[in-house]
């Protein structure tokens, strides 16, 4: 690990002042950043520890929504009674991620900012990685690309975003609250992460010095939901494909559906076409298969990950069936 200076801040103003300096990075729990620093992938000059900021509260909003402080741990968010009873999808997704030890450390804000687990990004022995070293190429394109993207990738980068939490947040129409040198702003979750395009080195639309202060959820009308995660082992592994499915039902008719996919793209992938197909109809398996096919229309697999297209289709069918009480 490179040598760096460290400062702990206890209020947001100090955090913005310290974090805005060139070479500074905010340090949450460090479960991803320290790992990347050990591998020499990240080399910050100064870490600004924001874990003691008074941003840990999880509280109901006047409009019936929920605000989750950015420094709440993944464990605390997953286990808060309001999250478990009103947004069980989020609780399930959080509990599907990482290990209990990591969830006890990791913050909600940090979870959003974790970087891809693409092998070629992590291993600096590979010269080619546009995310690590812009302009160098993408070793995954011709390499072992079993875990890589099938949707929204570019010829610059085919990495996927690893978060489970963010997939649930995408389905739940969450908004990320941010403070920075230019003031405060709210970024819808769907616009928070980026597709790789020609700038895969940028994972998110956050600017340098901007601090995530909270994640807000609208009042939930999606009372039936499930998070389905498919991975290589039963626990403590990243998703090959995951599905966050949430339904607003009137009797047996779907009023509205929300479907987001993990493990398939550089950002949590909302399957809007599939959602539209389900809205206004009764849940039946034929329609579900049609919706699932629409979700992966235009998918572009690589040498080792063609299985993800069929896996995503089947996972969508299973997740929506489970959410709707059909399975």
């Amino acid at each position, binding site marked *: 690990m490179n040598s760096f200076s460290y400062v702990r801040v206890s209020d947001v103003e100090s955090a913005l002042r310290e974090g805005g300096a060139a070479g500074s990075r905010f340090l949450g729990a460090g479960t991803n950043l320290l790992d990347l*620093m050990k591998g020499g992938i990240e080399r910050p000059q100064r870490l600004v520890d924001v874990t003691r900021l008074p941003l840990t509260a999880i509280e109901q909003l006047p409009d019936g929504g929920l605000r989750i402080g950015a420094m709440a741990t993944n464990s605390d968010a997953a286990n808060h009674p309001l999250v478990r009873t009103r947004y069980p999808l989020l609780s399930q997704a959080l509990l599907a991620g990482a290990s209990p030890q990591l969830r006890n450390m990791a913050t909600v804000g940090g979870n959003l900012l974790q970087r891809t687990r693409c092998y070629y990004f992590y291993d600096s022995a590979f010269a080619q990685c546009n995310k690590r070293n812009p302009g160098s190429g993408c070793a995954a394109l011709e390499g072992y690309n079993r875990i890589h993207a099938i949707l929204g990738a570019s010829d610059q980068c085919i990495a996927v975003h690893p978060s489970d939490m963010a997939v649930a947040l995408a389905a739940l129409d969450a908004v990320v609250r941010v403070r920075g040198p230019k003031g405060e702003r709210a970024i819808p979750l769907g616009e928070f992460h980026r597709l790789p395009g020609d700038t895969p080195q940028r994972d998110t639309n956050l600017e340098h010095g901007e601090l995530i202060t909270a994640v807000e959820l609208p009042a939930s009308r999606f009372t039936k939901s499930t998070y389905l995660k498919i991975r290589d082992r039963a626990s403590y592994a990243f998703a090959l494909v995951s599905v966050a499915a949430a339904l607003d039902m009137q009797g047996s008719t779907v009023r509205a559906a929300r479907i987001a996919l993990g493990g398939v793209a550089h950002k949590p992938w909302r399957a809007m076409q599939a959602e539209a197909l389900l809205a206004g109809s009764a849940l039946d398996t034929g329609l579900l298969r049609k919706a699932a096919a629409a979700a992966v229309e235009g998918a572009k697999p690589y040498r080792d990950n063609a299985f993800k297209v069929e896996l995503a289709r089947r996972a969508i069918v299973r997740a929506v069936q489970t959410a709707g009480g059909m399975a």
Partner: protein
Amino acid sequence: MDISKRRFMQSAAAAAAFGAVPHASAQTPVREAAQAAAGGEHVQPLTLNVNGRPYVLALEPRVTLLDALREYLGLTGTKKGCDRGQCGACTVLVNGRRINSCLSLAVAHAGDEIVTIEGLARAGKLHAVQAAFVEQDAFQCGYCTPGQICSAVGLLAEAAAGAASGASADVRDLRPLALSDAEVRERMSGNICRCGAYPNIVAAVKKAGGAA
């Protein structure tokens, strides 16, 4: 500060016995050893509270909690497996919660209450989880065991507080649940055992939790 100084000397003696303090002779107090070893840039004074005792150190910020425990305090019960948050051998309890000490900076834990495997026994009596691991023969080579035991202590506290897991049938049900084999396996999944002692580890955790 006299008490603290005596504690440095006790620690130094313990550490020296295991030969674990880098760049330090057996006579060197831990504090000086740490300063000598951490002669790089950005060295900061730091007090870590470990197993109820304060340790005054001067460390570079890049020293992880795991390395601080093992290399500077001589508390080598906590093990370094992967050093990348993938195996759980480094698990310790911070403010009562289990964490991976390898992915955490020591300097970030000023003011925290840290408990390691060395701090679980009370007055010569093993912690219930330690006793259950012995009784159920829940280890083979033993390298992952301190992490497994600290993790299980954290697990039992979480379960008693009603925490859900990925194995929970319905997270909306807030009642504390019985620790089934499936629940224990899911909740212990952050600790890898290369010997494959899992069946006995599950039995030990259930035993310590009063479920078997």
